[in-house]
């Protein structure tokens, strides 16, 4: 079972994603800020991180930075959540190692789930599986 980490400060957004993923059989944890997210990664390396860029108390960029600097975490696939108009932030995120992005308001939740499935496809076994698939 794949383990997904959601870093998102909007509770109901995170919940919606979590509920849908759990129904699909994923294990999901939610961090409300960057600091918490890193702590959770330290506790258990996820198979995919859904990362909101704008969070209080250390944002998504902080997380990306931490991930980059850790050899163990470098290869965790990261899909970044953004709001419309965050183009500059997106570019920055991608340059910092994010694999893909989602403009929240533009896509139904279906597509989020599909995207998660895509990045975790070769990752049926739970735990340490690192998906090297890079999608643009």
């Amino acid at each position, binding site marked *: 079972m794949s383990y997904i980490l959601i870093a998102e400060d909007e509770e109901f957004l995170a919940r919606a994603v979590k509920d849908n993923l759990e129904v699909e059989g994923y294990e999901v944890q939610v961090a409300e800020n960057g600091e918490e997210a890193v702590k959770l990664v330290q506790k258990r390396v996820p198979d995919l991180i859904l990362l909101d860029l704008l969070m209080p108390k250390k944002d998504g960029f902080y997380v990306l930075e931490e991930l980059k600097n850790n050899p163990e975490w470098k290869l965790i696939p990261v899909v970044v959540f953004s709001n419309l108009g965050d183009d500059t932030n997106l570019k920055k995120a991608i340059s910092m190692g994010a694999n893909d992005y989602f403009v929240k308001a533009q896509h139904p939740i*279906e597509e989020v789930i599909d995207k998660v499935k895509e990045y975790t496809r070769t990752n049926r076994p739970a735990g340490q599986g690192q998906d090297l698939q890079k999608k643009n």
Partner: protein
Amino acid sequence: MNGKKNNPIKFFVFTIASILLIEFVILTVLGRWTNATKFWEDLISELFLAAAVSPVLYFFFLRPLAKEINERKEAVERLHESGKELNEAQRLGRIGNWNWDIATDTISWFEEYYRIFGLDPAQRPPKYEEHLKAYTPESAARLDAAVKINTQSGKPYELDLEIANPKGSARWITARSETKRDIQGKIIGLRGTAQDITERKRAETEREQFFKFFQLSTDIMVIADPLGCFKKVNPTALRILGYSESELLSKPFIDFVHPDDQQPTKDEMARQMKVGASLDFKNRYMCKGGTVLWLSWRANYDKKDGITYATARDITKERQAAEINEKLATVVRYTDDGVISMDIKGIVTSWNKGAEIISGYDEKEAIGKNISELTVPQGKTEDLEVSKNTIARVSKGERIENYERQIMKKNGNVVDVNMTVSPITEESGKITGISVIARDITKAKEIERAKNDFLVLASHQMRTPLSGTRWMIETLKRGIFGKLEGKQKEYIDEIYKTNNRMIDLVSGMMSMLTLESGAAFKAKEKIAISKFSDDIISVAGALAESKKIILKDKLKGRDDAYIYSDFQAVKNILECFVSNAINYSSSGKEIEFGEKEESGEAIFFVKDHGIGIPEEEKKHIFERFFRGYRAKAVKPGGTGLGLSLALLIADKIGAKISFESQEGKGSTFYLRLPKENV
């Protein structure tokens, strides 16, 4: 009779001596000399006889005879003298005379008469018909008529006639006639005179001309006496002042002057009497009927006879215009708005205080400089282009209102100004300059920006919960918490649609706000037309497929053609057109989109066979939040912002949107990019 006094004595002596001599001769002849005593006796008695006879002879015969001879001589001399005098008189007075006898048809001319007609007095006078030719046709006709009347009725004439003078100026004579009658009263002839009046006529004509001048002049012309009354006024004076001549002459003219100007006028007159002339003195006159007129005077004072000759002009209108100009100038001077005038190239020709306050440059620094170079912030070449462009447009006659721009003050600060830029035309219609009225709206703009920022932030904040609710509703719809039945499904579906509408509205608002703040769509890059094909398909493909609508992509493969514009802008507009086309077409219909070139313009088109736009709605479709009634029926969740946004974007990039549509048949929307974008 000189010397005649001596004559009697001479005569006596002569008489006596002659008688004695005769006696002596007779006696000698008769031989009566017998003796000497008898001789001497006879002699003495003869002497006494002679002495007695001679006075008698003298007084009764010789003297009267001599007198008569003298008188005759004197008479002839006198006649001669008077003849000479007459000639002299005639020559002096330029009068010639003639005499005509009807019976014999002889005409005599006398010296001066010849001279008047430039003929030789030694010659015979010309015949009457010949003589008529000397006059101008008009004068000849008059003379002929008068002569005929005179000969028939005896009515003499007196005419001024003009002698034709081919060599030079006209010569004039006064011709007078007199009728000659016999004892019975029958007309036997005419006599007459002709007086050369050329000089007089010339003087008269000149005088007439000057008088005409006085009469016809459109300036007031007056003559005033030393007492300060008008002596003579010309018709223009009467017309302008409104009084009759008698009214104007009845009082001192100062009475007609406005009370406030009376003292200055009196002072001016006093000054004039010393100096002799006054030039350009202005005062107000009270005209008949109460109007007050401003007059500008030029007067000359003749010291010798104390007469003033003056002309005046009504300058009331000019003064009013000057007053208005002065008022306007004051307004311009004291307003906080910048009032600037320039020539058609943008060189500043006038600069008011307001402009100084706004820009920091004073009059001296601004006049003569190019407005664009003066005010465009350093380095903003694009703004410089826009500024120069604007000036070019206005110099061709366009008027631009609400032109907002940032300008750089002298101290380097940037301020926002709102300007109205208009062409200055003269009466002929030629554009001679440009005027700018500028208002500093920095504060207002700041408020506007703050509002805008707030709205952007608010919209942004709204998005997040809306996205959240969307995902939550979708999660419900997915049925992971249990399948939705009947009313549950219905309600959830409605909630979903409404939520989406709100998301769209917020998106639309955000886009509008971004556009209005002016930041977006400034990029200019070379874009292959085919690029838009990929984009549209990626955005609209799925939607089209779901509605089973066929997209005919004519942009695909167009690598040959390029446009030079902002990619996002053109993309957004085309996406708007295509999504509208899809939304408002029913299943199975076809939508075609492509680009063609026409007179140097790149024209994108999106053609559908959908619901079309009713006539009465056509003028509203670009209005914010407007939804056509059919459109609403087909897509109730629309925001009504799509086309207004597209229009805003098009404006920003200098493109034009147009459309053709028929209700029930379909619509075609066009996006035209101007030449420089191609």
